[in-house]
């Protein structure tokens, strides 16, 4: 490989590099900063994200392989990179206040999130099973540490340990699956697998077992049935901004890789695994929604709701048509906006000795603080898929995909699930608007947190009212699979 090419590769890798470098700077700087100047670190991390976003935008419309085809820069990967960067940015803006409140070490916190984001980016852009695995591990290991960040709390430690043990086991399964695929094809590269499959080379049992292991592994990552059990405990234990970050980022990254695997590399076998994903989608959304109904802890409720949302997203994978893929990609944006917003609401009401983590804690919010209640209302309406919100447009596309492919049963289960979902989302609305205030609520004064809530609510509505630009973007990003 010539030097010029290497240079271009490095240039194309700039978004990831920005994050890595920022993370390293944070770690180096942290020990030397006096306590009162730690907030400086937050500024640096936001700069790092903005630099990375700038680099990503500059590379928009590029489409080229990197690092000897291990990696690919295409609109699809860039689209996901922007989602991850947005998620991380909002997570940071929400976290500042929370970190000073809980006196958590800021340097490591920001650095770990940045490393996790890098891992997600690698997953979305990986064109080889091994590079995807590499990204997945970087993301996973940073997340384990982030979940256990509240070192003094049993729930946090329990969540982290659970996540770590199950995650490590899961990584083993994925790796074993990869090994079996390598045994079959003698390659781990997605394009070569695709070529082999399209030439109609016989699929051996070993290959199918390998694919099954990959499905199981990624189903764990996206918290799909029957590998969803970890999510509630992990979300409950982790600091709320981290829970929001993991529920959005980790899920989107795993879906990004899953889509590349099943709608690109294994596309010739589409008909064979379609039924399986239909089943997985139905079960995941139903189980998630039914279990969410009885939750009183808001983070657990959001965990089950995020399982249900994974179910809706799986529709896109199960249909694999332009409608389904656009819907899925659109839904990632919608899901990021509304879910980050919901978790940010927990942070907004958190006080030094009071965690607004039960849905009871939101009683009477509308009377005392109507603006924040309205923001939460918008997130909840969007989560429930009531128009005009981003969540509605996303669901509309996904359901349209199911109807178009003639999967009426799936579509029916999905719409009925949205009715079930409304019943628990609206328990929060009821508490906010129709109940008397129980304890004194004091929303945080952090302007970054307030700004991000307003922005998230605004974009949730905007994407519902005028989704055209975003729909055009997801069409370009999804063009790869058509």
């Amino acid at each position: 490989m010539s030097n010029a090419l290497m240079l271009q590769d490095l240039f194309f890798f700039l978004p990831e590099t920005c994050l890595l470098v920022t993370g390293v700077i944070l770690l180096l700087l942290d020990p030397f900063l006096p306590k009162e100047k730690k907030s400086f670190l937050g500024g640096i991390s936001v700069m790092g994200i903005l630099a990375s976003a700038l680099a990503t935008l500059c590379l928009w419309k590029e489409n080229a392989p990197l690092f000897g085809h291990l990696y690919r820069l295409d609109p699809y990967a860039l689209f996901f990179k922007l989602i991850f960067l947005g998620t991380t940015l909002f997570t940071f803006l929400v976290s500042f206040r929370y970190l000073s409140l809980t006196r958590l070490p800021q340097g490591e916190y920001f650095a770990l999130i940045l490393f996790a984001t890098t891992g997600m980016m690698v997953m979305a852009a990986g064109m080889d099973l091994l590079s995807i695995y590499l990204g997945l591990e970087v993301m996973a290991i940073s997340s384990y540490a982030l979940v256990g960040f509240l070192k003094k709390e049993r729930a946090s430690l329990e969540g982290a340990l659970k996540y770590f043990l199950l995650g490590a086991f899961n990584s083993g399964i994925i790796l074993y699956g990869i090994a079996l695929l390598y045994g079959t094809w003698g390659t781990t590269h997605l394009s070569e697998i695709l070529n082999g499959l399209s030439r109609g080379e016989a699929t051996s049992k070993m290959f199918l077992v390998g694919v099954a292991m990959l499905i199981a592994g990624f189903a764990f990552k996206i918290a799909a049935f029957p590998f969803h059990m970890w999510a509630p405990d992990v979300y409950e234990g982790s600091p709320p901004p981290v829970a929001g970050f993991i529920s959005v980022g980790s899920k989107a990254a795993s879906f990004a890789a899953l889509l590349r695997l099943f709608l690109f590399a294994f596309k010739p076998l589409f008909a064979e695994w379609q039924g399986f994903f239909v089943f997985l989608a139905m079960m995941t959304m139903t189980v998630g929604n039914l279990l969410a109904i009885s939750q009183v802890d808001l983070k657990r409720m959001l965990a089950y709701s995020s399982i249900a949302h994974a179910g809706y997203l799986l529709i896109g994978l199960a249909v694999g048509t332009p409608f389904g893929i656009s819907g899925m990609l659109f839904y990632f944006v919608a899901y990021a906006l509304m879910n980050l917003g919901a978790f940010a609401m927990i942070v907004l009401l958190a006080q030094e000795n009071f965690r607004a983590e039960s849905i009871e804690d939101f009683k009477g919010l509308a009377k005392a603080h109507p603006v924040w209640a309205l923001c939460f209302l918008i997130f909840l309406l969007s989560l429930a898929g009531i128009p005009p919100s981003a969540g509605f447009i996303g669901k509309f596309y996904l359901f349209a995909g199911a109807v178009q492919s003639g999967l009426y049963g799936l579509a029916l289960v999905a719409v009925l699930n949205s009715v079930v979902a409304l019943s628990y989302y609206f328990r929060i609305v009821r508490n906010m608007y129709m109940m008397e205030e129980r304890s004194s609520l004091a929303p945080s004064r952090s302007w970054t947190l307030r700004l991000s809530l307003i922005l998230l609510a605004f974009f949730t509505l905007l994407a519902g009212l005028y989704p055209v630009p975003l729909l055009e973007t997801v069409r370009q990003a999804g063009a790869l699979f058509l």
Partner: protein
Amino acid sequence: MLTNPFAFPILSTLCYLPLAGAFFIMFFFKRSWTGLIKVFSFVVSLVGFALSLLLLPSFQAGSSEMQFVEKHSWIDAIGVSYFLGIDGISLVLVLLTTFLSAISVLSSFSAVTVRQKEYYASMLLLETGMLGVFMALDLFLFYIFWEVMLVPMYFLIGVWGGERRLYAAIKFFLYTLFGSVLMLLGILALYFLSAAPEFGIGKGTFDFLELSHLVLPLKPQLWLFLAFFFAFAIKVPMFPFHTWLPDAHVEAPTAGSVLLAGVLLKMGTYGFLRFCLVLFPEASRTLSPWMVTLAMIGIIYGAFLAMAQSDMKKLIAYSSVSHLGFVMLGIYSLTPQGLSGAVLQMINHGLSTGGLFLIAGMIYERRHTRLIAEFGGLSHKMPVFATFFAITLFSSIGLPGLNGFIGEFLILLGAFRAKFLYAAFAVSGIVLGAAYMLWLYQRVMFGSCDNPKNQILRDCTLREIVYMVPMIVLMFWIGLYPKPMLRLSEASVNHLHKIVQTAQPLR
């Protein structure tokens, strides 16, 4: 399709004026400025009514075309457009909506004492949603208005309602949402059928006017009819989907009940008229005996339930089930008389049942109870009130000379032409209706005024008279001279009838 003769988009202005008002109240008014908030929201709703009256002179009643049309591209990629327009049927419902909204706002001045800012904002928001439903001609847009409207109604019931308001509010929301999401599937299926070349369009669209050219075989028509049926039948509500209604009506504040009965229920019947008949004519013909059967069960069962109630509002709520049964009977008699009777009866029911809820609200404001047994002999204490009550009640029963008579007569005529048996059953509903209503009046108004709490009741205030008089005037006007009202929707109704009776399915 007739373009908008005004220099400005009149339908959009009308539709979003209340929304703008709601925003203004939310963001610029202080919580404590209750007087200003009341006057402002009344003025906004009054201007809305005036704007809707402005439609009348330029409306071409002889045409069944969509008028005042506004069409703009919205989500081009999937053929969604921002498409508003009204024909005769929607016009009368738009008028009803703006009229009842103004009345409801006025009726709330003393009834609502807490969180008034949010209350009036919700009322105006609800008006926007209702108007949008009657104006939207793009199914995607229609669905959005259809759902959006649930949110303010949920709040009206849940925040300002009675004792079991929380239960009633979520029950209302879940029931209607259940129907709506099935309709969403129907809309999606319709979209993909319109994209298939063999059914006459060949390009995916949500445009109602284009979709009305869709020619489908009977079987998909039946399935699609079923998908839309749930949404509309729950809203109407038809037997056996009526169980949410008594709860919602009883718990809602007076103005909420007025709009719920007066306008929201009409969305269901409007949906059948506008979408089910036109898009699935063959299915409508095939299923009409079933629909009529459900309607007749509703008429009679609703009447019996009403008779057994001890709560005034619950009685009126069940009477709605019975009356809406009449409207459904008129629609699915599939005769011109039945259809125009149904359209007229939609307006009549809005006036008479809306009026009855206002009456019940007046009593409740004075006594804080709605139990019929608590009252008796009120006519001596409140003569003006007794007059209003009597006229509204007779309008609801269908006494000749009042509006209800014309509507019921036309529906019976239509039903009779369709099948003798239909009319025979329906007439028994009218008799039962007279029975429970008159019995209600007797128990509340006549006899001796024994209960000491009733001795001190005051007669109607000036404000109450101001909002009851226009209702009464309209009841008499439609009852004595229904022609102008019928003429507004005549062309559209005949057009509808022609479509249903002549359309042939794809063989």
